[in-house]
């Protein structure tokens, strides 16, 4: 054997071992990150799933005109302000006539959500002929009852350690025996805006707010970013100091912490231009500042990837540079630009920090109808719910996270599909 072969042989085992070690560490890190992801997702899903169900309670309400303080020929305004809560209260007192203690009476009134009176009002206004009749309706049960029905309160604990006391358990047991309590799919979670009562709280307002904010972001950042990218790639003078400076700054902007954009938005858009606080408009403006660099960088890469031969051929056939850009370069670069845009938008969708400064972290109990209405967005809703003392908000927080994750996954999936389907290789 030659000397050199000997040397190689001697070191071979060591090199194999090194390779094995490296592979092992790589595998470990992947397994570890998957394990963390799995733990995170399973806790969120485990906690959040019950929130997709909600307990309803059936009550036989007598729409007595005397109790309501209206007559059959009252105006709709009088019907609007009639005493529906008294009807609900009397129904409950009639069902449990033995309750006489003042504190227990108050607890009894609180087993059904206070939205019951408003539901009843809407039904009567829609159909005034209901006055004087007895109807059975399903109303939302109060959050404590809901938490108990989902098995999150252990009735075997001593009474002082439970939020639902013995006398309340007696009521609930009777309601269950009479088939008056039922768990159904939680439509409120998707149909209502925020509320301070967990059973009435929904995400519709936040989802609409996010949608409107994203719309503003897209409309502003997409054209500006594509124009900027096309200019920098195709028209800007080469080796110019100013162009280099702009390029460096765009790359830097992509790394600026998002809260800084919030402060900028507060100083420029709100204090200088007078854009109203807490609206999708201001949110969209600030988030488009944040997504601009992401889209510009992705778009430049996509435009750069279009082979020069295509552009040269177009020029050779007599097309002007602008015609070349719009008829050849941009259509070919579009899949890459769109992927960058979607990823930028997904990033903006999950952002809360800059919104804190511009008043979008707020209690908004109505679904926004336009970009001038007060609104919050989904991540802010998650933050607000996680901070609430009521126990029923814990599961709703996780449910909201699941909804937000679903949106993000769908957006990223679209980006991947676009890339796979339309990407051209030369």
């Amino acid at each position, binding site marked *: 054997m030659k000397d050199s072969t000997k040397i190689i042989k001697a070191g071979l085992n060591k090199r194999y071992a090194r390779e094995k070690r490296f592979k092992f560490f790589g595998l470990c890190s992947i397994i570890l990150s998957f394990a963390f992801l799995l733990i995170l997702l399973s806790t969120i899903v485990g906690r959040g799933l019950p929130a997709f169900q909600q307990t309803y309670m059936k009550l036989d309400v007598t729409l007595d005109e005397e109790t309501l303080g209206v007559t059959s020929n009252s105006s709709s305004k009088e019907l*609007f*302000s009639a005493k529906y809560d008294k009807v609900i209260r009397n129904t409950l007192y009639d069902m449990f006539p033995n309750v006489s203690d003042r504190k227990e009476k*108050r607890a009894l009134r*609180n087993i059904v959500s*206070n*939205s019951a009176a*408003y539901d009843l009002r809407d039904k009567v206004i829609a159909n005034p002929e209901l006055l004087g009749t007895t109807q059975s309706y399903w109303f939302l049960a109060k959050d404590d009852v809901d938490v108990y029905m989902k098995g999150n309160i252990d009735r075997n604990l001593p009474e*002082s*350690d*439970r*939020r639902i006391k013995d006398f309340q358990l007696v009521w609930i047991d009777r309601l269950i025996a009479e088939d008056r309590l039922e768990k159904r799919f939680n439509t409120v979670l998707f149909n209502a805006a925020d*509320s*301070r*009562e967990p059973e009435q709280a929904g995400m519709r307002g936040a989802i609409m707010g996010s949608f409107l904010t994203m719309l503003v972001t897209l409309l*502003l950042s997409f*054209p*500006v970013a594509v*124009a*900027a990218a096309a*200019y920098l790639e195709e028209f800007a003078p080469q080796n110019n100091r100013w162009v280099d400076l702009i390029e460096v700054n765009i790359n830097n902007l992509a790394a600026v912490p998002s809260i800084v954009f919030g402060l900028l938005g507060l100083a420029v*858009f709100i204090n200088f*231009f*007078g*854009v*109203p*606080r*807490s609206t999708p*408009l201001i949110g969209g*403006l600030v988030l488009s500042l944040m997504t601009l660099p992401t889209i510009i960088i992705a778009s430049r890469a996509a435009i750069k990837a279009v082979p020069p031969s295509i552009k040269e051929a177009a020029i050779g056939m007599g097309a002007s540079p602008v015609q070349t850009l719009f008829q050849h370069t941009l259509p070919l670069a579009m899949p890459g630009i769109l992927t960058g845009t979607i990823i930028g938008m997904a990033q903006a969708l999950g952002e809360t920090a800059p919104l804190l400064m511009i*008043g979008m*972290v*707020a*209690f*908004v*109990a*109505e679904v926004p109808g336009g970009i*001038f209405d*007060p609104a919050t967005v989904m991540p802010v809703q998650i933050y607000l719910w996680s*901070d*609430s*003392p*009521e126990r029923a908000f814990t599961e709703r927080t996780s449910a909201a996270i699941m909804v937000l994750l679903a949106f993000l996954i769908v957006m990223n999936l679209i980006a991947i599909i676009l890339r796979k389907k339309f990407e051209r290789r030369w």
Partner: protein
Amino acid sequence: MKHLKTIVATAAVIAATSSVYAQGREHIEIVGSSTVYPFATVVAETFGNKTEFKTPKIESTGSGGGLKLFCSGTGVDTPDITNASRRIKQSEVELCASNGVNNVTEVQIGYDGIAIANAKSGQDFSLTRRDIFLALAKEVPGANDGELVENTAKTWQDVNPDLPAIAIEVLGPPPTSGTRDAFVELAMEGGCKSFDWIKAMKKEDKSKYKEVCHTIREDGAFIEAGENDNLIVQKLEKNPDALGIFGFSFLDQNSDKVKGAQVDGADITFENIADGSYPVSRPLYFYVKSDHVGKIPGIAEFIAEFTDEDTWGDEGYLTDKGLIPLNEELRAEIGEAANSLKPLTL
């Protein structure tokens, strides 16, 4: 310079649309204290459900931040109401006046107690404010008047021989929290003032006085446990020897897990906070910009809803959320002043 043109155009559009917006606003805008936030939101929601007005929008900005926004002017782009967990300061009234906000109505809505609590399984505590100061201050008075020494108290017994021999371990909110401000001002300063020579210092050297009374020790006896009061309750449950500081509404919601300590001989109860015998409690307020009444729809009706007996009364729905109501005479007096938009007098 294609994108420059676009930016200029966008700016023009923004300016145009916001001037359209500035002509009117349908909803009430409320800012201010995070302590009042849970109460104000419930009232806002009920108001939105009960009436045909839009539900007010409420931002939780802290008392100081809220008053700053509130005092920034009288246009529709400024808030109509601000919540505060302390009274408005003279300097803030002046700031308001300098921006043309001259007609302000003050409404006190009730009280908030600050609980010093431990787990149900732990020992009963009966503290004085002096004990609290001596246990938690960074520097405490030494053997002679005018002398300050590093706080070396390890157990509650070191502070006061009547207290149990348990290591001092207090979980509390960070300095950014309003609860911390109130705790420091009411409990710490209250105990600090009980030393005559420190009290005398207030007149001579106010900043030194504040430093002595408001500085909490940093050697691990006081643990900053984050803004989330739910978390403090959970930690207390696991460690029966620790005490925690949080708002009364959280004690009320978790009365099955934690119990409040006596302070200056008074239990932390609804009644004791309301009549002032529990010393670590503060009044809660909201301030209304009277000039906006009539311009923004529903402000008068919102005040009426807030000051309704079913809302802030002894049996009102705010007590379900942990507000300690005012007594009946005060409610009658303040309610009337609020609804007639009586101007603020300091």
